[in-house]
């Protein structure tokens, strides 16, 4: 009896390991505890499913530039306040209805609806009204000039849903993307099947299986055992399991994600720009990256948040310079050294390592760094933006968005309390400049200002290590938002 039960078990185990050919399997971390929502603008958005179910007006091309999705062409008025978008003809939602201008108007207005209170509303704050010109043309009026509206519309959450579907979109998932909802089960396996009518043609995979695996170690086990085909990001320690293994391919992708130490510019001694510059000059960024995250784990950054894949990034020289740091401290009245206490928790494994490395690197400049360990619970509400110096983390955002969200005087997440009227007006000027080269120069100035005066020590942007089984095709080494899921398959 026991042997029978066991052999049945073994047989079914073998069967369960083999899924239908043509299904691509990936894992997600069940970050919202099973309350994952197919509403693209919900705070509980189901990241992978929403990437595959819905289209955007504008999407990233392989280099991160805006390229046509549902909108085929767009143009701005001279003052960059009125934009018109022409829509692709013949696109259908999964329920068979036509996608037209009214759906765009509804989608964008819903994002801005104060009753919904979506976190995406802030991204599209500049949009004033959306007008339907005809079935395949919309006009968007802005409250202030913005030359890079397409970049904002490229946000991964700005996804087109059918008119008046807001109340049940979280469950139906009806969009116009390459995959259609078959079964929604965030804690188990969510199945999306291929949409044969996708405007770019039927996708390569027959179905996507999104499997809920909260623990990152368990995801790596699943990948090794062949239960999933792809894992978005593995830790640097886990990377060795997959490199030089013929069963797997790895990709190292530059991202705009960073960990940083931030100093409140409204609190002594950090209210002195010379002190801040000295604090940031004392770092050897390459060395720090090597020690904290591993060799080649990122791209060095000079305390501005614009990442290496962004068209507006400017390169600055920020080599360690102890002599200048010392001179600046002396000028600021700290001849005999300065004590700095940084509060951090273990929410991010890099934070404490980063502070420890900084402690050693900054010592020769007379900067005595102390760590104030705080509990990770309530870190964001009780410590961050409260204590004078803290550790922080940010995910990738386009230049304009991140500069506005993190450094504008009035920004809710202005964690350095950076108040600089010139900087604010330069931000406005940059986004209203229609000429690309001039705009790029303006954004470069803003980044230089942060290097000279800012309160954030951003040593580098992180790379992500992506792993997939060697039979995976169509997954280009590009950032997550640029992946074309319709081309991905595991043969």
């Amino acid at each position, binding site marked *: 009896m026991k042997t029978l039960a066991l052999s049945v078990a073994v047989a079914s185990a073998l069967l369960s390991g083999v899924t239908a050919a043509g299904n691509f399997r990936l894992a997600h971390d069940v970050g919202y*505890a099973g309350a994952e929502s197919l509403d693209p603008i919900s705070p509980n958005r189901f990241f992978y499913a929403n990437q595959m179910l819905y289209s955007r007006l504008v999407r990233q091309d392989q280099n991160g530039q805006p390229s046509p999705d549902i909108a085929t062409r767009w143009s701005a008025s001279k003052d960059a306040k009125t934009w018109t978008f022409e829509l692709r003809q013949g696109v259908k939602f999964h329920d068979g209805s036509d996608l037209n201008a009214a759906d765009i108007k509804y989608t964008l207005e819903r994002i801005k609806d104060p009753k919904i209170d979506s976190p995406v509303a802030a991204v599209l704050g500049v949009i004033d009204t959306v007008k339907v010109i005809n079935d395949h043309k919309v006009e968007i009026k802005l409250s202030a000039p913005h030359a890079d509206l397409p970049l904002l519309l490229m946000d991964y959450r700005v996804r087109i849903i059918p008119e008046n579907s807001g109340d049940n979109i979280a469950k139906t998932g009806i969009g116009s993307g390459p995959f259609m909802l078959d079964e929604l089960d965030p804690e188990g*396996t969510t199945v999306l099947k291929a949409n044969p009518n996708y405007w770019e043609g039927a996708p390569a995979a027959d179905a996507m299986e999104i499997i809920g695996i909260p*623990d990152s170690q368990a995801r790596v086990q699943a990948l090794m055992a062949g239960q999933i085909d792809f894992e978005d990001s593995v830790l640097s320690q886990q990377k060795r399991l997959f490199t030089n293994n013929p069963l797997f391919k790895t990709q190292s992708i530059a991202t705009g994600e960073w960990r940083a130490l931030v100093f409140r510019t409204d609190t002594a001694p950090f209210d002195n720009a010379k002190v801040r510059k000295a604090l940031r000059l004392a770092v050897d960024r390459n060395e720090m990256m090597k020690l904290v995250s591993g060799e080649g784990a990122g791209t060095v950054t000079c305390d501005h948040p614009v990442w290496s894949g962004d068209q507006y990034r400017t390169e600055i020289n920020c080599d360690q310079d102890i002599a200048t740091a010392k001179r600046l401290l002396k000028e600021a009245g700290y001849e005999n050294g300065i004590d700095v206490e940084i509060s951090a928790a273990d929410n991010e494994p890099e934070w404490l390592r980063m502070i420890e490395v900084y402690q050693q690197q900054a010592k020769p400049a007379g900067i005595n760094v102390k760590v104030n360990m705080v509990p990770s619970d309530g870190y964001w509400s009780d410590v961050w933006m409260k204590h004078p110096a803290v550790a922080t983390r940010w995910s990738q955002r386009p230049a304009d968005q991140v500069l506005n969200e993190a450094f504008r005087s009035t920004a809710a997440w202005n964690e350095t309390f950076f108040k600089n009227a010139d900087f604010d007006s330069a931000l406005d000027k940059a986004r209203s400049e229609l000429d690309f080269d001039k705009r790029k120069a303006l954004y470069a100035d803003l980044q230089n200002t942060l290097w000279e005066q800012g309160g954030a020590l951003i040593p580098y942007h992180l790379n992500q290590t992506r792993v997939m089984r060697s039979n995976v095709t169509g997954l280009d080494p590009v950032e997550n938002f640029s992946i074309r899921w319709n081309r991905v398959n595991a043969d």
Partner: protein
Amino acid sequence: MIKLILQRLALAFLTLATVCVLVFGVTEALPGDVCTAFLGRDAQGTRLENCRQQRNLDQPALQRFATWSAGVFQGDLGTSLKRDKPINDLVANRMRNTAALGLGAALIGIPMAILLGVLAALRRDRTPDMVISGGSIFAMTIPEFVTATLLIYIFAIQLQWFPAITTVRHSAPLSELIPNIILPMVTLALVMMAHILRMVRSSMIDVMASDFVQMARLKGVPYWRIVFIHALPSAMLPAINIIALTIAWLLGGVVIIEQVFNYPGIGTLMIRAIYDRDLPLVQAIALILAAVYVLCNLLADLASLALNPRLRSAR
């Protein structure tokens, strides 16, 4: 006898009440709550207030505790703050899965442990004993997550006989869970066996050397009869408490094992609930686990009574 059981039950109830108060107090004393955990950096201003209001977190702690306790008496464990679902529903399937895992491990582990323990005792200091005792020390000292990882490496990654981790949802029928259950079950059984086996072995050695066994031998009772009818029941007495404790340990061990195997049981739910600061859910699970613990001990006491007539007639 009945008086004894009633006394035990009253004590058990008191223990559970204390557990509830302790768990509530400790989680309440920690900084942050489900809203700050969930909203992260958005935990500011009206968004935070709304979140707290929706979940009644603006009420005083004592009042929340009173409401929750009142619910428990009516069999309602409350509502999960993060998942926004009745805890009874959340817990039911996962409890079933964990019970299947634990019972499976106990059903394989306990008989095996007793058998191997007896064998080791009878072949004391000879090769079988060396192998069995050595193996059990090995199984006992290696942490269960290491055993689990080793088993995954051999049976899931190299041989590909079983899935490395569970990918089915918590409400899947048991038949779908079976292939997923085997590796975690073996891991649990291995550690559990080691403890029980060693206890059975040493007490069996004692009993085999005792006067009544000697007497039975002299009377010419067949060997197997001496071992299984005369010696084993006496040898089991100290082992029963160990078994009860091991089953109770199983509940704690299961938390780690479930996490390693991504098994949709009460343990993974507990870890997620703590991580999410989902207080009512943490409390409900702690209460359930404590209840099982107390119940195991109660059953062990009753089993001792049944096996040992002296205890019954003492009063």
